[in-house]
Structures are given as structure tokens and as C-alpha cells.
């Protein structure tokens, strides 16, 4: 099973610096957070965000990981309902698949805020990175660097919406440049290990590569390792999506890793909770809050906060 992949966004132009001791009076606020995997730093960062929320609102936050298993995530939401949490934060592993569980939670009167990806079944709102935009940003940078022509490689990931959206945004831009040729499209399963293996083979099969797009930073690191070992670090550059700590390190080191569309997971949680509190108090909220990603390059990495 693929490792990291899904992800999300940036501070929802934080509207929420605030929140005067909301929560349910008297009793401690109980929040359930379920994420697809805690094996991905992105979601770990999200859970860190949840801890911040906890101290901020004096809430209890229960964080669980679905291990890329839809059934498990459904079960976890059911357990949250049993525990009578006040709010469910759901980073869905699969937007359609989780619908049943979401509906149950809503029926039990618990607000559900989706993070980092839409979920069916009647969620109150969703806070996520604009993944299409993330793919687009990466593509635009790539096109610009290549002057609109060259051989590129795409390293895909697991078929979850966050990933497919990035690919979608990327392709939208690329398709306008007929001189940019996708010479290989393989799946790195979202992790460094597999991306490295795959890239080694792609390097062998293709003599001239001008740029590589990976769906997350872990894959990008794998690609870069393969590139350096093949001694082809000057041949092409790499762009990806995430803004993970490993990407920051690489950008600072200034190699072939050129840039990444950074997301903001902990802000995502904080915004999500803030929105939920509004919901609990009966306020209307937007159906969807898209957090734009920000393209980080070697030039502006120093001003990037990171996860």
C-alpha cells in the first residue's frame, strides 16, 4: 500500500484567530480525528495541529489512523459516535466510501468536518488544499523553466482524490504545450522506496529527461536519489506537491529539487475546528474552504514555515 499521498492546504486565510473559549460550557470539548495514515508526515503534522487545538480550547482530541483501510475508518467513526464526541474531524481516505459513516454521525447530531478531501454523506463543511491548483502551480513552474518544451516524467501515486486532483491540475497546464512530451508515467505508490526503484528503471530507458513531476515530496526524494546515483543531477529538475520537511531540506541544499506546492496541514485542523464551533453555535459556514497551496522554490524556501 502506498504511503503518503493525500494532503492539504494552507492556512485558510486564518479567519479564526479568536474563538473565545467556545466549546461546550462546563464539559470538556471532545474531538475525534481520523486520518488515512499516520505513516505520512502530513497527517502527523495534522495530528500535531490537533494537539494545538486541544490546548487552545482545552479539548480532548482522539486521533486515530485508518491505515489506508476504508472499513477501518468507518469503524473509527462509529467508535467516535459511541464515545459521544462533540465533533468529528475526518480526513477521508475515500470520499465516497466514507459516506455511510458520515451519515450515521450526522444522524447522531455530531458535526463532521472533512479535512484535506471531500466526503459524501452530508458533511458540514470541508477544509482542504486546493490540489488542482497545487498541480497547476507545479506545472506552471515546470513549463516556465523548460520554455514550453522538453521530455518529462510523471510519477503517480495511489488513486485517491488528493492525488488525482494534482495530476489533473498538472495535466491541465501541460496539455497546452504540445512540445512537452510525457515520456514515462509510472506509479511510485507515494513512497520514497518505490519511487526510487521506478525512477532507476526510467533513467535507464530514457536518455534525455528534462523534468520530473511527482505527486508528493517523498516520491520526489526517491527520484532525486536515483538521479544522483545515475550521475544525472544536472540533466533535469524535479517538482512536486507537499512542502514536507524533507522537501524543505532539499530545497535549502539547492540541488535538482526545484520546488513544491506547499500545503498547510496544521492550519487545516485549526480552521476546521473553528468552523465546527461556529456550526455548533448555529452559524452558517461555507460548504467548502479551499486553502490555496503556495509554491516553494529554492529562492523563497527560507520564508516558508513548514509543518
Amino acid at each position, binding site marked *: *500500500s502506498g504511503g503518503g499521498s493525500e494532503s492539504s492546504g494552507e492556512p485558510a486565510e486564518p479567519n479564526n484567530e479568536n474563538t473565545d473559549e467556545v466549546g461546550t460550557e462546563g464539559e470538556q470539548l471532545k474531538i475525534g480525528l481520523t486520518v488515512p495514515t*499516520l505513516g505520512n508526515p502530513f497527517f502527523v503534522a495534522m495530528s500535531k495541529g490537533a494537539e494545538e487545538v486541544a490546548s487552545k480550547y482545552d479539548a*480532548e482530541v*482522539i*486521533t*486515530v*489512523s485508518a*491505515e*489506508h*483501510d*476504508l*472499513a477501518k475508518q*468507518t*469503524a*473509527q467513526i*462509529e*467508535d467516535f*459516535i*459511541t*464515545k*459521544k464526541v462533540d465533533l468529528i474531524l475526518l480526513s477521508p481516505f*475515500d*470520499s*465516497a*466510501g*466514507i*459516506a*455511510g459513516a458520515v451519515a450515521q454521525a450526522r444522524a447522531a447530531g455530531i458535526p463532521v468536518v472533512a479535512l484535506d478531501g471531500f466526503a*459524501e*454523506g452530508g458533511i458540514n463543511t470541508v477544509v482542504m488544499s486546493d490540489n488542482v491548483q497545487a498541480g497547476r502551480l507545479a506545472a506552471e513552474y515546470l513549463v516556465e523553466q523548460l520554455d514550453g518544451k522538453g521530455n518529462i516524467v510523471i510519477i503517480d501515486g*495511489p*488513486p485517491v482524490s488528493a492525488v*488525482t486532483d494534482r495530476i489533473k491540475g498538472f495535466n491541465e497546464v501541460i496539455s497546452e504545450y504540445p512540445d512537452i512530451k510525457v515520456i514515462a508515467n509510472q506509479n511510485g505508490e507515494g513512497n520514497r522506496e518505490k519511487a526510487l526503484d521506478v525512477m532507476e528503471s526510467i533513467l535507464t530507458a530514457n536518455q534525455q529527461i528534462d523534468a520530473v513531476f511527482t505527486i508528493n515530496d517523498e516520491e520526489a526524494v526517491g527520484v532525486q536519489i536515483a538521479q544522483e546515483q545515475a550521475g544525472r543531477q544536472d540533466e533535469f529538475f524535479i517538482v512536486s506537491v507537499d512542502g514536507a520537511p524533507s522537501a524543505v531540506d532539499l530545497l535549502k541544499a539547492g540541488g535538482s529539487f526545484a520546488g513544491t506546492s506547499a500545503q498547510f496541514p496544521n492550519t487545516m485542523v485549526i480552521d476546521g475546528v473553528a468552523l465546527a464551533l461556529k456550526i455548533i453555535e448555529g452559524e452558517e459556514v461555507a460548504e467548502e474552504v479551499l486553502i490555496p497551496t503556495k509554491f516553494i522554490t529554492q529562492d523563497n524556501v527560507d520564508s516558508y514555515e513548514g509543518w
Partner: protein
Amino acid sequence: MNINPQESVQTRVSFKKRSQQIFNNLGMVIILFLLIVVMMIVAPNFTDPSNILNILRQSSITAILAAGMTLVILTGGIDLSVGSILALSGVISVMLSNAGVPVPIAMLAGVGVGYLVGAINGYFTAKPKLPSFIVTLGSMTYVRGLAFVITGGYPVVLASENFKFIGSGYILGIPTPIYVMTLVYIVMFIMLKYTMFGRHIYSVGGNEEASRLTGIKVERTLINVYSISGMLAGVAGVVMAGRLFTGQPMVGVGAELDAIAAVILGGTSFVGGFGRIQGTIIGVLIVAVLTNGMTLLNVDYYWQQVVKGLVIVIAVLLDRLRKRV
């Protein structure tokens, strides 16, 4: 005068090894019971009727897979492909249903696909006598590949409300999957205990050569066993699709290991020939209660893994030690 004076003495050396592999169910029932008592004391809301139903519903998929797995392990084999079959069956039945095929037929088609893959597994295991581990490792890989290929990797959203009923509906306030699971276990229980086929499974698992000599159609028995396992994986796939409102190519990864763990916790032996379906459901529940309780207790997710791994080993160990005394 008794010409068999040794009738009372129990075991022979040659069977010592074998019987050491037998776990009877009682030990595990006690462990499940203790686990429930502990959870009742420490875990908030554990005894809520809704939580009990949750546990059962959450168990149902693994339970259905584990029922088929019990048969396979009884014959001394293993079926690694059930998780992948679950995905493929779910995807196919959802796609058919979305394409306008009536729900029952779409569901049957999903189950049928599982049956077919199972039959192929069984054929290669029985006829050219390939090790079931490698045959089902192969089908685990290509079946999931197929699920990806036909969906292009995307989950297929389920349109039909009727279809959802199988996974998300209620009958008399009890979730439908619990009925499916119960039915599967009743049928399997009767089949194993009161039909020729059931007895042949034990016989083949216990001594394949001897079974052949007594005229049992060993190949046919094996093919049927794997077909049933595949079919039940298909059933699980359809229920899962109805529960998740989607046909997911990547669902059920690792489900085979959960099912196998449940079967072994339930006292069925890898040697083949020893075990009972009742034990399997106990094994399923042990894991389900543990997971549910730890989530209710808000145990750190990583520590849950550590605890779960240790509990599996300790449960089997306690059961073994109990039998030593």
C-alpha cells in the same frame, strides 16, 4: 477378556506433535470473556447497545472472510487472495448496478466473480498440486491488478439505494451485515458438521492420502473449498460496497491476514484437519473487542498496534499453556 488392554491410554508419540497443534475453543472463549469484562470496566460506553452492534457490524466483513478461510485452513491450505477478491467483487457489482443491472443480479455477479477466482485457486492447488500459498499469492496480486485496471484506479460511487441496504440497512433495528454474517456461520456450521462435504474437508485436511484411498474425491473437495472461500470473499465484497457506498479497488488490503489471525486464534490448526467454525467467530470477536475498546479508551494509535500484536501472541500462548496443565 479384552484384547485391547491399552484402550484407556490416550496418545501416541506420532500424534503428539499433531495434537499439540490443536487448540480447543474453550480457552479463547475465556480470553474473550475476560477482555469483555475488562472493557466493560474501563472503556466508556462499551456496553451501549449501539456499541455492541457496532462491534458486530465492524466484525462482519472479517468474519465472513474468516469463515471461508476456516475451510481452507482445515484442508491444510491458505488463501491469501480474499482481500483482493473482496475488492474486485465489490467493484464489479457496483459497476454492474450502476450500469442498470438489477441489484440482486449485480450482487450475484460480484459473488460469482469471487467464486470463479476461488475455483481457479482451487484448481491449481488440487490438480497440479501447487502450494496454495503461492497460488493465492499470485491471485492476490493479479486480482487486485484487475480491480485497478477495470476502474482505472478510481473508486466507483454506488448509485443504487437498494444496494446500500446490504451493507448499511437495518432489519428490526439490527444492521443487515450482522444478519449476513450470522447466516454464513449457521450455514457453515451445518455444512461442516452434518454434510458429507463437510466431513470430507476434515478427512482431506487430516490425511489426504488416506482420504484418496477411501474413495473421497480429494481434488473436487479442494476445488470446492477454495471456491467457497472465494465466494464468501465475494459476499464480503458486496456487503463492503453496500457499507461504503462505493466499489473500491484498494479496499481490503491486508484483510487476509486479519482473517487468518482470527481463524488461528479460534483454534483451527495450520496442520489441517483440526478446528471448528465456532472458534473462528470467537477469534474475530477478540480482535474486534480489543480494537473497539482501545479506541474508546483513546489509546494512542501506534500503541494500539503494539498492544494488538502482543495480545495475539499472548492469547495463543495462554491457550497453549492452559492445555499443558
